[in-house]
């Protein structure tokens, strides 16, 4: 499969996927990144939420189009259709809930199966501000990322720590692949972005 950025707008598509139950703060991450704000009580994502932001890499303007998809199993068939166009993904788990970490493998399989094989995936341990309630060690996250060839980072949507970096690092990685010609981008500087949150 091939990444198909929207030629008219030059957007990069990204997808956020909650793995199974939601509540890891995926939508909060998106909101923090696109709007620079934190909304503690967030509605369950039904289907898809989206955001857009312009960033600069190597002096080039890149539009990020981020799809934030529902984690619930009920919406799985709908959310899968967003995988197709994505160049990047954020796979997010909640460091205070081990089960969200345990489901990473399932999600990864699903994503690899339905998306572009070149898709850049970043693993994110969210809620790093809740150190006292931590259930998943940072080292575990790092090990998982190493094992599956992902980039890793811990973030907090609440304090905004590393949120910017997470998105931009992923975008940079995608940008490199564009330069290498891995993605067919049609002159448009653009990355398709899959923000994936495993909860």
């Amino acid at each position, binding site marked *: 499969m091939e990444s198909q950025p929207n030629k008219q*707008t030059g957007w990069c598509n990204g997808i956020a996927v909650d793995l199974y139950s939601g509540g890891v703060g995926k939508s909060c991450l998106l909101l923090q990144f696109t709007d620079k704000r934190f909304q503690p009580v967030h509605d369950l994502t039904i289907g898809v939420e*989206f955001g*857009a932001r312009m960033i600069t890499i190597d002096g080039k303007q890149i539009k990020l*189009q981020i*799809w934030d998809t529902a984690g619930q199993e009920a*919406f799985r*068939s709908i959310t899968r259709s967003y995988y197709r166009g994505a160049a990047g993904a954020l796979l997010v788990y909640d460091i205070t809930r081990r089960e969200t970490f345990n489901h990473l493998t399932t999600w990864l399989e699903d994503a690899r199966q339905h998306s572009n094989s070149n898709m850049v995936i970043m693993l994110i341990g969210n809620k790093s501000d809740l150190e006292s309630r931590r259930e998943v060690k940072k080292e575990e996250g790092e090990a998982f990322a190493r094992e599956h060839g992902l980039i890793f980072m811990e973030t907090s949507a609440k304090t905004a720590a590393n949120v910017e970096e997470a998105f931009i690092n992923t975008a940079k990685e995608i940008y490199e692949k564009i330069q290498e010609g891995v993605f067919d981008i049609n002159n448009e500087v653009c990355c398709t972005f899959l923000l994936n949150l495993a909860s």
Partner: protein
Amino acid sequence: MPRHAGEWKLPVKLFERMELFISFARNFLTEFFRFHFVMFSRVRNAIFNVVGGLEPLPVLKAPESGSDDRTLGPKFPYSRPHFLQFHTEEEILVSADHHIRPIIVPRDISKLPWNSGYAEAVNAGKSLRNEDQACLRRAMLERPESRERNMRGIRQDLRKMPSSPECMNPATCLPYIYFALFDGHAGTGAAVAAANQLHHILHEKLVDVIDHLLPPLDGYMQLEASTKHGTTFFIPEKAVDNEALITGALESAFWDMDQLIGEDKQKYKVKGGCTALVALFILGKLYIANAGDSRAVLCKSRCPIPMSNDFTPESERQRVRQLAALQPELLGEEFTHLYYNRRPSQRDLGKRILYRDAHMTGWAYKTVTPEDLKIPVVYGEGKRSRVLATIGVTRGFGDHDLKALNSNIAIKPFLLSQPEVQILDIQEEEIKDSDVLIMGTDGLWDVTSNEKAVEIVQRSLDHFPANDKSRLKYRYTSAAQDLVMHSRGKLYEKNWKTADGKAATIDDISVFVIPLAPYKEEYTEWKQEYEAIHGIYETSCETSEGFGKLSLKTSPIATGKAVMSGLAIENSVNRDSLPDSLGDSSASNIPLYSADIALKIDDKTCALASGQDNSVLVIENTSSGDNLSSHYNCGAEVKGTPPSSEKSASSKEGEEDYASVHALMPCTDTHTTSELNVFCQPKDLSQKPNTLTHK
């Protein structure tokens, strides 16, 4: 044609003079026309302002009125439905990604009445924008005078909370809920215009008939008006029911909407046309008005019940052909109103062919003449049928400038803005929790049958059972999303296909899934309150020994509500003083509303003053036959304080500026104004509170 070389050898001086003359003439003409144009547009502005455009008229930029779209701006900017809460142009762009075709649902479901579901998906690239539009409104019809006067208590309430709809009294305010889908074609202008304006127009139409929908005081007419201006209250010859009035409001609103778009074309860029499907919940009923090929389907007890008919060239073939037969000049030289079982060609000249004229439903033979080689006014079958070989819908708004392909023949005369209105009596129906109304544009129905839609909705609803409180609010949104998903399908290679491998739609898709039970509940509650308040006025009055024991009898709910809303006060003194004759088993169950003072006016009439404020209720004995229990009608309400400095019982503060006397009397009553005026003499009211005047 080759020119002679000599023609170009004119003296240079002549050229210069001609140039001078031409530039002079051009300047003169420009000034001349500019002046006239300014005058013309002023006059037109004045006319439009009178005719009533909803928005102030902008300055016209182009001398050529309206014909050049590029020079006019849109009246409303392109947007997506307000309840999707898109804040930026970028969000609109992202939502219209033709490759991903995201299924967009509202960000905040609670913005929709009863957590109704909505979902949409953009087309697969046939137009840059999503040409569907949706609108929903929860609004309140309010009697204009309700803000000022007429009802005790309510007036006080209003003073406290000037314009908060939640506090509106059911006696003067009627809530309704409006959902609409508009499927645009050949541009977004008409659909955007309809989504921005139709509900305002409809609201005005409904306000026009508020006196019927919500009678001022049931069965009473306003005396004030009739004394001043003679009989101003129009009593219709024919009995007109509310259904006909609401249907009429919808129909006239649709008509006006179309006219408005036509007028706006002179001032703004309004491109294309659109279909319209409206669901209106009002007075316990659901009204579906449809003009076009969007569809509303009721999903009841897991069965689909169509609530609208699709209007396409196919379904309206007969109407279009009859119009064409009556006005053949509308067809130009290229079309015919006849219909053939197959399209005749040159070779068929002189042969016989089966045809159908506008006045026929069957077939007959005729000999093919050159006339028959013209294109039938409606040509093509099913989804491909077209009027004048151009347009695939026959009802809706807009398309005022649309011409048949490659010709100058106007299409608008063949289009109707008139909706077909169907009514469902929700109040009478037994409504289950899973009974919903599905509204969808043709993008949905092209792929998903009514039966399939019901199946999908039921599956979604079962997934979010009603007893799961925390997730309940997602159930209708989820159902709408699943419907869109089914029709949109997924992209395989370069084709959008449904889950079962069939061709999916490449059209825009918009869907509402609206639960019916919450409206029924809401309406029942409103109706109880409404009747409670009206109960006060409609109550009968009984006495066995004359006015001394006079009390008003009303239902328990009515009394309770009335007391709560300040319309009445309960008077225990009066209730206790009731004679046994009224306190029999049946009567004692009925709470009594009593007045602070009761006045006997004459043998047949008395007046009650109900404390709190200075209004007087006039009771008249109408039944003379029954001596055991005389029946009194609540004859009139006289409101206001007598214009006297003397302190009357009911105006405790003795305020200086007295309200004028407003009286209400039964329509059927023979009493005249003069008689009523007697009741508000100051001396009649100078009684002590909490006492009854004995006979």
